[in-house]
């Protein structure tokens, strides 16, 4: 059996990749993909712990997280589309009419 440390390291790595992606990428859709990567790394952690501890709560929570991620994807893409209709860009640096 693969030790749990491997899963935890992989998910920590995925989480960091997601955070770095959010902070460095400038395309709204890629930023959003990075956020999904963060959520999925949390899911991997939950499933690994759940299987390792023999405790089902973690796996149940993963379903909640997946549902929420799906809802967020629907809302997020809708917001990006409505922005694109008005502005014709999804580059975060160009979306800057609000500032002082």
């Amino acid at each position, binding site marked *: 059996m693969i030790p749990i440390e491997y899963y*935890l390291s992989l998910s920590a790595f995925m*989480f960091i990749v*997601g*955070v770095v992606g*959010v902070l460095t990428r400038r395309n*709204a859709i890629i*930023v*959003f993909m990075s*956020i999904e990567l*963060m*959520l999925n*790394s*949390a*899911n991997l*952690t*939950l499933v690994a*712990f759940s299987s390792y*501890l023999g*405790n089902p*709560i*973690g796996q*149940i*929570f993963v379903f*909640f*997280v997946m549902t*929420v991620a799906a*809802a*967020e994807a629907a*809302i*997020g893409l809708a*917001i*990006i589309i*409505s*922005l694109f209709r*008005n*502005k014709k860009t999804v580059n*975060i640096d160009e*979306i800057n*009419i*609000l*500032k*002082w």
Partner: protein
Amino acid sequence: MIPTALEFQLLLPVLIIAAGILISLIIEMFSSKSEKILPWFSIALFVSTAYYSLLTVGHERIIFNSMLAAGGTANIFFFVFTFGAAIVTLISIDYIKKIGMYYGEYYILLQSAVLGMMLMANAQDLVMIFMGLEQMSVCFYILAGFNRKKIKSNEAAMKYFLLGAFATGFIVYGIALMYGVAQTMSIPAIANGLLIYSDNIIFVAGLLLFIIGFSFKIAAVPFHMWVPDVYQGSPTSITALMSTGGKAAAFSSLLIIFTPLFATTQSTLFQPYLVVIATLSMLLGSIVAIAQTDLKRMLAYSSISHAGYILIGVAAGSELGIASVIFYLSAYTFMNLGTFGIISMIENKDEGNLSLNDYSGLGNKKPMLAALLAIFMFALAGIPPFAGFFGKYYVFIAAIESNLTWLAIVGVLSSVISIYFYLRVVVVMYFQKDENILNVEDSSPALLGIMISALLVIVMGIAPGSIINLISNFVK
């Protein structure tokens, strides 16, 4: 275990709102005049829930297999959320017609957001906190971008969405790490083993990530960068709810997590973190607000600095600290709702009339509105005898009792700075010559909502002692 009838009865505030959402959906589906019916239906729903929450505030109990709490502080938060949402609905009635987003769905989303806030305030399980938070946030993402023809609203929605989802990532990962150590998501169960877990680096890292995620939601520096843009770009009525109910809900979840921690010998584990973000939020919010000319953006920075004051109460970690946080949140809710209500009345349909100079001469043209706005500005600045003063007073007392005197001094300094930009609004209204023609459309529902908030601000300022005693009874 099957829940008993009593448990359903104790959960009635949440159930009323949930049933109301379903009924509103049916009204919206079958009625062509849903925009006219739904606001009054929502107000009835919110007010009856607020009344029932206060009525059952003494029935404290853990219900639904220790998933939710009923009574006590949860019900006080219910009252703040639902009564605040009722005022927001009153403000919205004419406002959404004016700026061209006159759809019935608006009220359904408002109700759903309030349901999410309520679940955050009475959760006893990390799953419930997460679900409540997401229910609230997803509704706010939509509402922030509700005016979808306006690019400002689009931009606010996208920034709010990206940063909000980013914070959610932190919260979920934090929950996952805490679960791995504690083997449970039930907060009372985690609280029982807190002394053992708090030596475990994975658990502490998880808790820290969780708290960082919530620092985004409460708009504390350095996680505040979305706040000014989102508050400025969103429809004003939504900004009103986001800056009050949304913030209060995030703080209620933080209190649920922190209260068991305070009871242990490890109570100062996160104090350095809280003290640092409280100091930064207070000072940065107050100083940057001075430079703002747009009133909504100025209030966004003021909201950041208020988050700092509230964090002082959380950092104090005593019973008085928690009670003062709840008092401050209720006072802040009604002060801010009134202010945004007045801004939404003065705003014109092209989202103009929002800068400070547009308010010049308001004292002559609309004496009523100007007087009310002056009350709210005095209250936000923390000038007695209004609610804002006593909110700050109790928070600072709590800090001094917990040996955080210097933090209270920083708080006093920051509120002295903040008096400048709040009173500037009053000066512009009464003493500056008016160069522009201000057309304010009268709106009696909005005026009613603003007057109710003013009344509450004054009542909380006149009788703060009895209210803080009521809250303290329920803080363990």
